């Protein structure tokens, strides 16, 4: 090989690298693919219980949504080996990841998912979830909070059991934005570029509607669009700094944001670091929600899954979780335990909200079919500005 040949070899190596990286870049974009066709069976089956719970159990949940002791305690008491994965970061993302498997009647080895009510009702309609056998859930039957027993998406709790519930309102830095008390105040030019909104269409938009004086439960598509239009204006003018999930925590602690739309449980944890941060029920009311445990189709060992659901509905077991996560606990009797152990916590309205505290708050409003598609599209157009 002559020297000029060699030189060319090296140069084309460069070109080859370029082409390879190009291919990789395109490949990265392409990896979202995969064929999805046909409809699943729409007939809902009920879980089949088999004798005494044993074997192993895989649970998918959100990060930081359980204390460190509950799983080992459960394993010790029942002899069931638990594989607990914190792989849910967003309802929609998790759905998109699991959907191809569920379509084939498989659950990826998981027996429990914890997801928001609107997400589980979508999955239920697609035939991806199983009805529960209540005979193995006596604690759930006995101890579930009255207020959570008949949600619009699953009126008799046929396939869902609440994991935790909570409220969406505003988190403010008392020092830097003391007078922010309503969602409307977030549009005050004084706080331009210092306000984060949640990227959750079912929470952010209804909250803005409430500030406009519209009741989200009876809102029409036009009402949704009007609220989205208002949010769009604020995003374009730079009033809204950015749309976030839990990551508003970063902006609040660094001082980049002084008021955000946020979740009650986060606020309790954030206060531990910065006492100036405070969660407030907006003047026109907050949003209330619950995240539910469900058993997907194809779930291995549903007997163990129901045993776990029943276990966490024992007040003393639930108290352990509630103390750690600081969301609204769905189990009756936990408050009584705290009154003895930790009276301070028993008084916290973010963990045990009185009916008085939440009287202006609304449940997640219904949003279905074409209206849902249009609203989600319009809201995402604002997110993607």
């Amino acid at each position, binding site marked *: 090989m002559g020297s000029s040949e060699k030189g060319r070899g090296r140069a084309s190596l460069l070109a080859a690298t*370029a082409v390879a990286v*190009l291919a990789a870049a395109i*490949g990265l*974009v392409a990896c*979202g693919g995969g064929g999805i*066709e046909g*409809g699943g069976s729409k007939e809902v089956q009920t879980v089949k219980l088999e004798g005494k719970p044993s074997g192993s159990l895989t649970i998918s949940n959100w990060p930081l949504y359980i204390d460190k002791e509950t799983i080992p305690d459960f394993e010790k008491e029942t002899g069931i080996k638990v594989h607990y994965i914190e792989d849910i970061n967003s309802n929609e993302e998790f759905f998109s990841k699991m959907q191809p498997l569920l379509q084939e009647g498989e659950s990826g080895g998981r027996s429990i998912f914890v997801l928001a009510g609107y997400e589980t009702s979508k999955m239920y309609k697609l035939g991806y979830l199983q009805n529960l056998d209540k005979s193995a859930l006596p604690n759930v039957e006995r101890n579930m909070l009255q207020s959570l027993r008949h949600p619009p998406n699953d009126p008799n709790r046929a396939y869902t059991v609440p994991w935790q519930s909570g409220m969406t309102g505003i988190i403010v830095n008392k020092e830097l934005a003391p007078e922010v008390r309503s969602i409307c105040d977030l549009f005050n030019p004084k706080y331009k*570029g210092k306000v984060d909104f949640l990227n959750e269409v079912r929470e952010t938009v209804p909250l803005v509607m409430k500030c406009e004086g519209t009741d989200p439960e009876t809102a029409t598509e036009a009402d949704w669009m009007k609220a989205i239009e208002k949010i769009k204006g604020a995003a374009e003018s730079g009033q*809204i700094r950015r749309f976030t999930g839990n990551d508003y925590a970063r902006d609040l602690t660094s001082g980049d944001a002084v008021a955000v739309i946020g979740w009650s449980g986060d606020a309790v944890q954030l206060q531990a670091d910065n006492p100036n941060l405070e969660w407030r029920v907006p003047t026109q009311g907050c949003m209330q929600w619950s995240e539910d445990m469900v058993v997907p189709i194809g779930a291995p060992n549903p007997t163990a899954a129901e045993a776990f659901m029943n276990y966490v509905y024992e007040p003393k077991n639930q108290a352990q979780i509630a103390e750690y996560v600081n969301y609204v606990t769905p189990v009756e009797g936990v408050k009584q335990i705290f009154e003895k152990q930790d009276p301070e916590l028993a008084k916290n309205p973010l963990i045990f909200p009185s009916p008085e505290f939440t009287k202006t708050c609304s449940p997640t409003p219904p949003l279905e079919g074409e209206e849902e598609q249009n609203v989600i*599209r319009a809201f995402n157009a604002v997110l993607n500005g």
Partner: protein
Amino acid sequence: MIAALRRRTAPYFLLGPGTIWLVLFFVVPLYFLAKLSLESGFVGAFEFNWNWSNYSEALSSYDTQFVRSFVYAGTATLLSLIIAYPLAYVIAFKAGRWKNALLFAVVAPFFTTYLIRTIAWETILSDDSPVTKFLHAVGLAPSGHVLATSGAVIAGLTYNFLPFMILPLYASLDRIDTRLIEAAKDLYSSATQSFLRVTLPLSLPGIVAGTLLTFIPAAGDYVNAQFLGGAGNRMIGNVIQSLYLSQADYPAAAALSFVLMVLIMVFVVVYIRFAGSEALMGEEAR
């Protein structure tokens, strides 16, 4: 006879692993992506029906994000070139025994993951940081914040892809036969002339490779816009992510991916035509 046969077939065997890789992980997914991009319906019940309107809708609804992505990526590429060229030049010609140390310094950030480095920029550019205060004082950040603006996204892209510019530039500058530059000086060219007529043309393959390696991934990037951008700074990668993961509109996401791929491909072809394929392949290919 057998030896001749072996000689003829050997290259095909050598190509085998690469070809299998390419078919399995590029051609096959590409086929499914193409098919998906022509489907319609709701999640769980998508139907293949040559739904070309996915493409027209993708283009008309997200033209802003396309333009924005190319402007951000283009600006970042230009900034990278301006920063990288002098550096690569110094490493190639002036660094002496420091050459390896400097090259190591260029690559060192790769020892930390891309994500962590981008998140570090969130801290560097946060509103109360000295950097932001300084930029505000000299009038570069009139609104008082840098994070959550287009400037932050472009800065992030520039920083993250800079090594992809430096390395090919260094490779091409380092190959230059210094006797050619000496010859130019012998022939009474000034320093500027010898740079413009000898060094720069000879380093063209590095410039072309570097700009492609920077521009292409930058145009499809979504991490920088996610962490450093605010409302109104989302790039096309963020749109594809949101369509696929949060709206479960797989056909639209697939169509958008295709449009992005085609636009980048067109850009590359035009660019190479314009720069000349010799520039990419090296002067000997002429």
